């Protein structure tokens, strides 16, 4: 199982310049990818332009968007052109794009796209996108419904899970693999997972606060998500082990504290494994 690092693009009060410094530091290892989330109505950096900039300051790590709320992005042609551009700027085999509808109505209202049309829009985009993006870009689908799995087997390379304890990941990953083999796709889907961490003195509460804020749209689940924050090397080791056993191909650990020392702390925690 490969381990990637999330970018600090959705943490409130992150200093300007942190994201690119973060990317340069992560490039030195031990991470295999740099990833970010996409969200419209939130104080965060825009996903595709950020990845283009990150492509310019890194050479080794894979760049991943987990996941892009594609229906808010207009035509498949415009989206495919952006994706191709990032792929070209990053160099061969370095770009993973996850697509999904996202769970948030406010993003759609702000984007002037009907929330009720989200599934149909993504289906239409996907049909064109697979032709337009071309080879060399890894395409993932995110989402928890049956429709997401149907999209994955039709046109994508794999599945991106939304995060959660290893048991929840395992059952989602099993479903994705079952859908894949039921559809007669050869081999198995690439499966990405994610988790959140905050390491070091005083970081736990800051991190939980950030998660509660980011996930406030989930209602009663924000508390549960915040409680799942990984705050020690042992917790990270156990989480990684659980994901590895459940058949995760790449696990991305996202920061919740906007401080460069988090990159080093995570690197050390992973080496202790």
């Amino acid at each position, binding site marked *: 199982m490969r381990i990637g690092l999330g970018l600090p693009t959705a943490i409130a009060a992150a200093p300007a310049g942190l994201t690119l410094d973060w990317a340069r530091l992560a490039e030195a290892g031990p991470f295999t990818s740099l990833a970010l989330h996409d969200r419209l109505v939130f104080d965060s950096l825009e996903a595709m332009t950020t990845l283009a900039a990150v492509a310019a300051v890194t050479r080794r790590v894979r760049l991943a968007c987990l996941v892009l709320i594609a229906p808010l992005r207009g035509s498949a042609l415009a989206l495919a052109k952006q994706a191709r551009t990032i792929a070209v700027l990053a160099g061969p085999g370095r770009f993973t794009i996850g697509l999904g509808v996202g769970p948030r109505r406010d993003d759609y209202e702000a984007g002037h796209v009907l929330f009720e049309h989200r599934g149909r829009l993504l289906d239409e985009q996907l049909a064109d996108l697979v032709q337009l993006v071309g080879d060399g870009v890894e395409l993932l689908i995110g989402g928890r419904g*049956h429709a997401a799995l149907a999209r994955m087997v039709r046109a994508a390379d794999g599945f991106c899970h939304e995060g959660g304890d290893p048991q929840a990941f395992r059952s989602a990953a099993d479903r994705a693999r*079952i859908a894949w*083999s039921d559809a007669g796709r*050869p081999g198995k889907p690439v499966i990405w997972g994610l988790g959140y961490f905050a390491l070091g003195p005083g970081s736990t509460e800051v991190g939980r606060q950030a998660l509660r804020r980011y996930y406030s749209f989930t209602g009663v689940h924000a508390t549960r998500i915040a409680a799942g924050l990984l705050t020690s090397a042992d917790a990270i080791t156990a989480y990684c082990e659980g994901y590895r056993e459940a058949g995760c191909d790449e696990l991305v650990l996202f920061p919740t504290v906007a401080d460069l020392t988090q990159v080093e702390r995570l690197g050390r925690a992973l080496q202790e494994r």
Partner: protein
Amino acid sequence: MRIVCIGGGPGGLYFSILAKRANPAHKVTVYERNRPHDTFGFGVVFSDATMDFLARQDQGTYRDLMKRVTRWDSFTVIHRGRVNSVRGIGFSAIERRQLLLLLQQQARDLGVELLFQHEVTDPNAHLTADLVIGSDGVNSVVRSALAQHLRPHIEVGPTHFSWLGTDRPFDSLTFFFEANEHGRFGAHVYPFAPDRATFIVETDAETYRRAGAARFTEADTTAYCERLFTSQLGGHRLLSNRSQWQRFRTVRCASWHHENVVLIGDAAHTAHFSVGSGTKMAMEDALALSRALERSPGDVPGALIAFEQDRRPRVNHIQAMARTSFDWWSTFRHYVDWPPAKFGFHFITRSQFRWDTLVGRDACYLRSVEAAAGIDVRSRVMAVEPAGGDRSELVRLASSHPLTLTRLLPVSDQGRITPDDGRLDDYADLACRFRLGAQLSHAGPRGACLPRRFGTDRPLPAAEGWPLLAASAVRYTPASALPQPMNRSDMEHVREDFAEAARRAACLGFRFLQLQFGHGYLLGTFISPLTNRRRDQYGGGIGNRMRFPLEVLQAARAEFPGELAVAISATDWQVGGLTETDMLAAARLLKDDGADFVTAMGGQTTSQSKPPYGRCFQMHLAGKIQNHAAVPAIAAGGITDLDDAKTVVLSGRAERCLLDSLHHT
């Protein structure tokens, strides 16, 4: 804010408490038609998972509840005098009246206005409040008043039940099954105190009619059930409390809210009591609603949208589970003559549990199931050659399984899915050395596609494609080529191709043949009503839709002496698809025309089908084919390992299973 709760059951009361706690300035009124001490329904059950959820969300209420509940740790099925007990399935229970009194007390202490014996007949009179909660249960007047906006759908179940109680002590959640001269009965026993239990008697429509229970008074019902369950009651009584016979109503609504009015609990959604989730869902609704309101201060409509979006997926999940469980209760007459151990395992695996989820709870119980069955499940597992695998993979599978099926092999060039499809003759050297089965298919409207490493159903460039056939001119995806509806001459060719392929398979030494009549391939397009729009003798009712598939089966059967299975999509996993009655009829017709097995696949009949993927996700379809239609079945779909095969085979749902070609490592 002025908040009105119409209905003072657990959901309404709990919400009033949470709202008042969130903001003591809210003026909250609860209208309840009964008196404070009245109650119906004896006890309330919470699973350990529900209690954990409550502990995380609301420590105060959790602690108050914990002082009053009784906890049990096992689950018992008593059938024909034999006891099957499974440990490690924990749940807590409380007398419903105690729960209500506890919530009433909390509400009163917080300053909620509780108005008892106050029946709201016209919810419109309360619409001036800032927020109106319809927590008035399954017969909700709020829901009726707003029916045009909420669009409720109420499904009346096929079984009849009576809600009783007993003073016999029970030490576990217990299920009894009994027969008498009228038919079969089951009893759900949910203890809620050391010497009290809810005792629900349930039966099918036929038994109910023969017993003449429609004319029973409450006393008649009690006396009848006491007689029926004499030995289980051990001299104790049954207690009645508005215990007339009823049919369960499953409530679903297109929307749970309109403007400033929202439904919670049974008013919005119900799930058959055998999954024990009514009060749990009502209380979870209350929590979710209060959180949504806290997050959108001053924006009631926005909060109600967020509430519904949050709760829908969870409620849908419970309703889906309840549907499977309810379906079992509607059809248990098919299983009631089984040996007790097999019957018990079938019951326990009806919706929530499988071998792999029970093994950590009670391995000892599972060993008893295995011993009683005396079946080596390994001998019932069939592997399938993976789509992208090479020759060595097939050899590996064939060396370690009693039978291994090839990938789908086209019966003709026109029947290929992709240009890379294999052929029967590729297996010439292996078929005589290993125990192999051939899977024969004609792609129909799913033909002429890119190899599946690029995805599924992505059409080849037009110049590289070939003409497609189907029952009717229906494209598989919007991008697919339009197939030609088959004419008589096409049918003769295809039938002859299958016969020829079957002859060749026998000749090469294949031990087994499976004809693919599902998944939206050519023969499947005849069977599914979604893809067959013919007006001739091959379209219309299931008899007509099966006509051509049966002609193909007869032709292949005549050429192949070994075991022969026909795979169908036993459901379309789509609204408007194949009905259960048609599925059973199709299975019987296939058996009559010589199929030794029917393989219960599902979905893929159109590109819109949405199978609920997961472990063993369609084993219940095999179970119905095998037990309701009496046709030996092979289960397929999400059977990932030997544990899953044990779930399917030891529960009597299928003779054999097709293992998913899915490898973790």
